[in-house]
Structure formats: C-alpha cells, structure tokens
C-alpha cells in the first residue's frame, strides 16, 4: 500500500518560501482570527471542544489534553498558571524547534486561546537554553502580539488579561519533565517532585494549579478551536486523533519532519517511501520509534496478538514495517510513540556501541535525587563504555540487565523508566550481539567505521 499524503496542519507554513516569523506575515495568513472568535465564546465551551477532540499530549506521554485540563483545581482560589514546555530535549525529537523559529505566532495565538479557556492570567514559555535565537524570536513575537492587543491587559476589549514571558533553561534534559521544569522555573535545581502530592494540576508552580503542555500540543488546540473538536477527531483514527509529526533521523536517505493523520501510516511506509529507505548498500537493522527512551525494535522480529478494531477483537501479526505509527499500536508491541522521534540504525551499527552512546546521555542527565537512577544510569554507562573501550566480558549482558531491572518503579520521576528501557530492550532484542561482543572486538573494524562513544 502506498503511504498516505502528508497533512500539514501544524507544519502548514514550515519551510514555505517567503513565509516569515513576524506578525505581519502571520496576519496576512489569517493569524489571530481564531483568538478573536475564541474570546467571544465561553471558556468552558473551548475546554469541551478539546475534550471532544481526543487530543493527546505530544510531549511524550500521550496524555489526553482535555482530561488534563479537567483535573485543574479551579476551586482553590489560587491563580492558575500555564507553562509551555518548549524544552525539546528528548534525543531524536526536533519539531517544536521549527514551530518556534519559523512560526512563533502560531504558538503565541494557541497559548492565548488555551489561557483564555482555562482562565490563566500568566503563562511562561520554558525554552531550552540551547535555543537562544528561539527565545529572542518568541520575545519579539510576544511584543508584537502585545502591541496588537492579543497579549497583555484587556485583550481585544474583553476585559480578559494575560501575560506571557519566555524563560530560558540552561542545558539540563530533566527540565523537560514537568515537575523538574517547575522547580527550574522557581529558580532551583530541576529536581522533579514526587507525585502525589505534587500533581501540577493541583500543586504546581508556586504551589498553584498549573497546566504544562508541549508546544505542539498547544498548536493543535488552535486548530481545534477553529474547526471544532468533532471535526478534529475525524482526522486520524479513533483514540489517535489529529495529525502526528514524525521526526526521522539516523540512517535513512531523507531524514526530516513529516506530518500525517495519526495512525494512518506504518513504520515501513514512513521509512521506505517517505524517507527513501536505507542508505545505498545498507539494510535497516533497528529503530527507536519515539525518542531515545522508547524501547528499540529489531527488523525481522514479529509481533502477534489480538487488538480491538471498532468493537471487534482481531488477530494481528506484524513485522516492524507493518506497525501503524500511533500511540496504541506502538504501546501494544511493547514500545511507545513518545515524542515522535524516530531514530533509525542500519546494519553498520553495533548495538553495544549504540547503547553505550545512549547510556552516556542518561548518566549525564540524571538529576541525581534517586539512588537507583543516579547510580544505575552511571553503572550502565560505565559497563557499556568499558565493553567498547576496555575489556568486554561474557557476563556483561546479564550484569547490565540486572542493573536496569532495579531502576523502574523505584524513582521519583519517569526518567528512571526512560534510562532503563534502552538497556532492557537492547539486551532483550540484541542479546546475541552483546554475548558475541568480546569476539567481535577481536576482528579489526573497517577503516571508515563511525565511533558512537
């Protein structure tokens, strides 16, 4: 089956020749019309549209956005904050970058609609420190929007006021985790908070109810406010509505970002047709489908079971190429859609070395609060880098697995899972390669081999 057509609703103007990131260009393209209509409606209506839309968060967990908004404590009398999670730091993910750099007003308008719907008077955009231009572009866009009365006091004469400020991170991945982000925004180390009791919806920023949403998620809200939740839910498949942006990197002919109706494209269509297949003379070996924490898939493995189609249970028997790229299907085969970052590895890659690269990332980024995560991520790194640079032992695979197995479920935040899943899945899927590694090392590498660690 040929791949479906791209449907660009969020990336509509990305890379469009002549499209610039100033408000003039945005207004010429119909910008801020949705906000004008939204502020004339009842906030509850807007929340209802988002609930009807089935929109799921695009930051990683796929949590339903309408449900999240429904959990916000509105009775406490405290102010409600909205934080735009623009930390984009999950390896393999590169979509929010383009929205912020090329179409910042889309994000500002979407943020204002979401603030109005939730009676938020103060929003912060937490952008990762490594995007200094992005921060300046957003600041300029906010200033332009304020001058046009779309942000700030008494927006469009409605009596509703809301400010947005940009807050820059400083190079720590854990600031993407929402409670770590909140700590960081409060001026502290980004040590995630324990839940319960610190659910952001109740005890978030400054111990006030707080909504944290990813950049892309909020952009979908603008589309929903414009076209209605029911109309949005017609895009994609039930349970996986709207469009999904895939960021493909690694060993394919055409890496890049591609937006499709959710659940309509398979891994094989995405990698072979859309991305042009493997590099000349190579074969696909493995793929990580949803950011580097997602469990790896091995080309050639098969997934069997029963799944729901409508109300019926039907059998499925998929190879990696056949898997539909939606949250539920990827979840069913033991991995996740996560942030949409698809990292592809071909047959030139040694899996021990690839894991050593990933482990170095997680041990560098653990915030260090929980012993299993701090020590476990460090030991997984030490073992894999010793295997590559020092002596590899036959028992290393079992040792790695035992370290990884002791982390998940024993930590404050989901980083514990995120750092153990790569090791667990690499060993489960490529255990043979780990066992052979002491032998593999005895044969000289080709001169053009790439170092991964």
């Amino acid at each position, binding site marked *: 089956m040929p791949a479906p057509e791209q449907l660009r609703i969020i990336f509509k103007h990305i890379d469009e020749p002549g499209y610039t990131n100033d408000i003039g260009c945005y207004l010429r393209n119909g910008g801020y019309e949705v906000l004008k209509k939204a502020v004339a409606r009842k906030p509850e209506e807007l929340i209802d549209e988002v609930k009807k839309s089935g929109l799921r968060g695009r930051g990683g967990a796929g949590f339903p956005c309408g449900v999240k908004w429904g959990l916000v404590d509105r009775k406490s009398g405290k102010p409600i904050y909205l934080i735009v999670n623009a930390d984009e730091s999950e390896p393999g993910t590169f979509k929010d970058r383009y929205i912020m750099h090329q179409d910042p007003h889309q994000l500002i308008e979407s943020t204002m609609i979401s603030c109005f719907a939730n009676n938020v008077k103060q929003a912060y955009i937490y952008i990762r420190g490594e995007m200094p231009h992005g921060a300046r572009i957003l600041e300029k866009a906010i200033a332009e929007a304020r001058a046009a009365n779309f942000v700030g006091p008494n927006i469009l004469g409605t009596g509703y006021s809301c400010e947005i400020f940009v807050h*820059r991170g400083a190079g720590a991945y854990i600031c993407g985790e929402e409670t770590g982000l909140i700590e960081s925004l409060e*001026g502290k180390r980004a040590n995630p908070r324990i839940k319960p009791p610190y659910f952001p919806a109740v005890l978030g920023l400054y111990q006030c109810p707080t909504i944290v949403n990813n950049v892309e998620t909020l952009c979908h809200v603008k589309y929903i406010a414009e076209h209605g939740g029911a109309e949005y839910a017609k895009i994609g498949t039930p349970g996986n509505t709207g469009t999904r942006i895939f960021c493909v990197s690694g060993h394919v002919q055409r890496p890049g970002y591609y937006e499709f109706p959710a659940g309509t494209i398979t891994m094989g269509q995405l990698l072979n047709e859309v991305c042009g297949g493997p590099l000349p003379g190579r074969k696909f070996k493995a793929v990580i489908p949803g950011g580097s924490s997602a469990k790896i898939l091995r080309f050639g493995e098969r997934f069997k079971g029963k799944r729901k189609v409508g109300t019926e249970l039907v059998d499925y028997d998929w190879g990696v190429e056949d898997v539909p790229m939606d949250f539920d299907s990827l979840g069913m085969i033991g991995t996740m859609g996560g942030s949409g970052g698809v990292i592809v590895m071909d047959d030139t890659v040694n899996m021990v070395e690839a894991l050593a690269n990933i482990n170095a990332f997680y041990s560098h980024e653990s915030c260090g609060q929980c012993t299993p995560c701090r020590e476990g991520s460090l030991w997984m790194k030490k073992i894999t880098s010793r295997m590559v640079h020092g002596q590899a032992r036959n028992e290393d695979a079992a040792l790695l697995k035992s370290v990884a197995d002791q982390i998940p479920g024993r930590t404050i935040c989901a980083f514990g899972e995120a750092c153990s899943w790569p090791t667990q899945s690499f060993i489960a899927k490529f255990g043979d390669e780990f066992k052979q590694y002491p032998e593999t090392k005895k044969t000289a590498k080709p001169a053009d081999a790439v170092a991964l660690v």
Partner: protein
Amino acid sequence: MNLKPETLSKIDEVITHYPTKRSATLPLLHLIQEDVGHLPPDTSEWVAAKLELQPINVLEVITFYPMFRQKPIGRRHIKVCRTLSCALLGGYKTCATFEQEFHTHLGEVSPDGEVTVDFVECLASCGTAPVVMIDDELHEKVDCAKAKQLSDQIKAEAQKR
C-alpha cells in the same frame, strides 16, 4: 561584580516577570554570563543579595546546569552534539576535527585562546546531523570537511583582529 549598565537594567526588568524573586535566578545567571563570558567567583554572593537568597541557593543552581561555567573559555565556544543521531552520522569525527584544527582537547581553552571545544547532548536538530553550535549559531550537517571550513573561518577572523 562589574556589569554593563544594559545588563543591570535587563536584570531589574526580568525580576518583574515573576511573583517571587528567586525565579529570576536562571535569567540573572544567563545575563551575567553573557556580559562577562563566564560566572566570576562573586556571582553567588551578588545574585543572592539581589534576589534575597542565600549564596548556596545560587551556587547549587550554577553547578547543576551544564550551560553555566565558572571559568573563562576560548573566544568562541564550539559545541558538538554527541548524542545518537549525530554520532550515527559521524559526530565524533566532527568533534575530533575541531580538536585537531585548534590543537586542543575537549573542555580546554585552545593554546591560541581562540576556542573551547565541548561535546553537548542532543540539540534538537537530529534530522540535519551532525550538528554543531558555535556560540549562538547552529550549523547543520557538519561533516569533517565542513568542520574544517568552519575552523578556517574562525582562524581567518582571528587573523583580522
């Protein structure tokens, strides 16, 4: 602390963005680092006084976040992405090229004082790997040839000074 008047006025402005002064810790550290080039030894004391905190509250932030540095670096900061997608397309070789071109090692100031080369983690531009940031600018698809070309540019600019 000897800060430019523009920096001081930006500091006063940014504090107003938050209901608690402590929230301005990261913005202040960024502003000081942009002005001075690094965070000098009296930073914790100075920021703490400004934000009504204890110096340790600031020091623990400085030491947590990789972007903050307590020592001077070379005139230009070359940050090569180390993470998987970039490594798969030769990021380690790109990094080695910069080190060779400037006769330096990771994290050190090159002998001519011109650059510091560092590895950093995923820069969210994995589709154009390998990527490198030089100061505030992102450079995409930096293979060894392009790394050499960027190094030559930096050297040429240094010659003109």
